[in-house]
């Protein structure tokens, strides 16, 4: 039986064949993204990405992005009573000029594997370096893709490793955070108009996993004491996702997805989404999406702590909550509007994406004291294929 399974696996792997067209196209992409919410968080997020094919078997991608963040919660400076790590430093996320700027640089290669044991696959390797005034992160991501059975089945094995450093400027310490993520995806063509994807992921985070700018307030007699939040230093996170994409007639597609997530902090969540995309014109695509999310709270999250505990948090992400996201997307492809100069070029694509997000948590947010978060996310991107 085992030999038969091995033989089938070998046959499937041997039937895999990829070509240069399976690699990403030459593309320059420029995007401006923004985020605004009723918690007074404002983010502007420009990105630029260039993908260039260097041979029939390899492409290189370089990427740069900037996050410019303004958040009222980071503007607050809390002296911590319970732990001797509070400082009086004047710079950084705890001062009056919290406009945090994060720079991220990315470099990646995709390589068609023409020989050796992994012949017939595509190997992708990406390195990312991200830096802000109180946080740095270096990530290496690898992905091995196999196309099997006349490209009806795609297997993907991913591994991502991150080395992060946290050095908040209202504290005296620097802490590490190490993240290992393993993923396995299967994409299966079910018919000429129906495709399915199953995604498994396993994430192991170790080190400092709390937010240094959050504090827990505890009433002690006639005073309110503030303490640093404290989270367990390890978190195992698992997720299983299923996505289906179905072509409806000649001009529309329906995408449905469901994900179940569970972790070692007892956070369980269920995500469902549905998206409908319709050609309004051969060059114009309208997309409408709805996403629902519901989660349990972490085992150590409490609305109110009566005394200092080993693990304490006020992080709403770890509370019981639900959210809904509504998306509107408009894509316009060039080449069809010969009278409009900018749209004349068929290599050009414009995308406008608007998201409206609502999150409701069981406990009011630690800083804004609100249970409902309302946010707008807008993106405008230009893609140029050359």
């Amino acid at each position, binding site marked *: 039986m085992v030999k038969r399974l091995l033989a089938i696996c070998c046959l499937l792997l041997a039937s895999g064949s990829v070509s240069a067209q399976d690699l990403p196209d030459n593309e320059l*992409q420029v995007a401006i993204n923004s985020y605004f919410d009723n918690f007074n968080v404002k983010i502007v997020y420009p990105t630029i990405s260039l993908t260039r094919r260097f041979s029939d078997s390899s492409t290189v991608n370089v990427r740069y992005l900037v996050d410019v963040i303004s958040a009222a919660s980071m503007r607050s400076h809390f002296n911590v009573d319970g732990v001797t790590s509070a400082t009086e430093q004047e710079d950084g996320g705890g001062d009056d000029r919290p406009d945090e700027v994060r720079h991220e640089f990315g470099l990646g290669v995709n390589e068609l594997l023409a020989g050796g044991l992994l012949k017939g696959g595509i190997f992708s390797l990406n390195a990312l370096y991200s830096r802000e005034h109180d946080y740095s992160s270096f990530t290496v991501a690898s992905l091995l893709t196999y196309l099997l059975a006349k490209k009806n089945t795609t297997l993907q094995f991913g591994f991502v490793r991150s080395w992060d450093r946290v050095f908040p400027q209202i504290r005296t310490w620097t802490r590490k955070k190490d993240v290992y993520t393993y993923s396995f995806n299967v994409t299966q063509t079910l018919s000429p108009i129906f495709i399915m994807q199953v*995604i498994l992921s396993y994430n192991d985070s170790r080190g400092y996993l709390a937010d240094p700018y959050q504090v827990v307030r505890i009433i002690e007699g006639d005073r309110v004491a503030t303490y640093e939040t404290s989270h367990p230093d390890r978190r195992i996170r698992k997720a299983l*996702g*299923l996505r289906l994409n179905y072509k409806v007639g000649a001009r529309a597609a329906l995408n449905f997805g*469901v994900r179940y997530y*569970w972790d070692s902090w007892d956070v369980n969540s269920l*995500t469902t989404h549905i998206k409908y995309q319709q050609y309004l014109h051969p060059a114009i695509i309208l997309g409408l999406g709805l996403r629902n999310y519901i989660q349990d709270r972490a085992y150590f999250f409490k609305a109110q702590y009566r005394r200092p505990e080993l693990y304490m948090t006020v992080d709403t992400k770890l509370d019981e909550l639900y959210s809904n996201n509504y998306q509107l997307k408009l*894509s316009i492809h060039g080449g069809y509007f010969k009278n409009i100069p900018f749209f004349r070029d068929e290599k050009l694509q414009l*995308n406008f994406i608007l998201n409206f997000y609502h999150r409701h948590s069981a406990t009011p947010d630690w800083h804004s004291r609100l249970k409902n978060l309302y946010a707008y*996310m807008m993106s405008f991107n230009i893609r140029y294929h050359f």
Partner: protein
Amino acid sequence: MAGTVKKFVIGLMLMVSVLTAAGCAMVQPWQRGDLADPIMIFDENPIEAGINEHYLDYREGSVGGTGAQSGGCGCG
């Protein structure tokens, strides 16, 4: 949502996967026109998917299982 619901959801997802995959037929290269349509491709723009995931990672307690990759900041 723990325990029974978890088993039910995971079981349901696996059952749907197996049942749909069991009914699939080999699609020939000349039949793949619709599948190559941009509206039929999962994460047709990985950068866009990553940005969307990034916003959600910061506001919710879950990661993974979506196909998109986010991270690189102190927001997780």
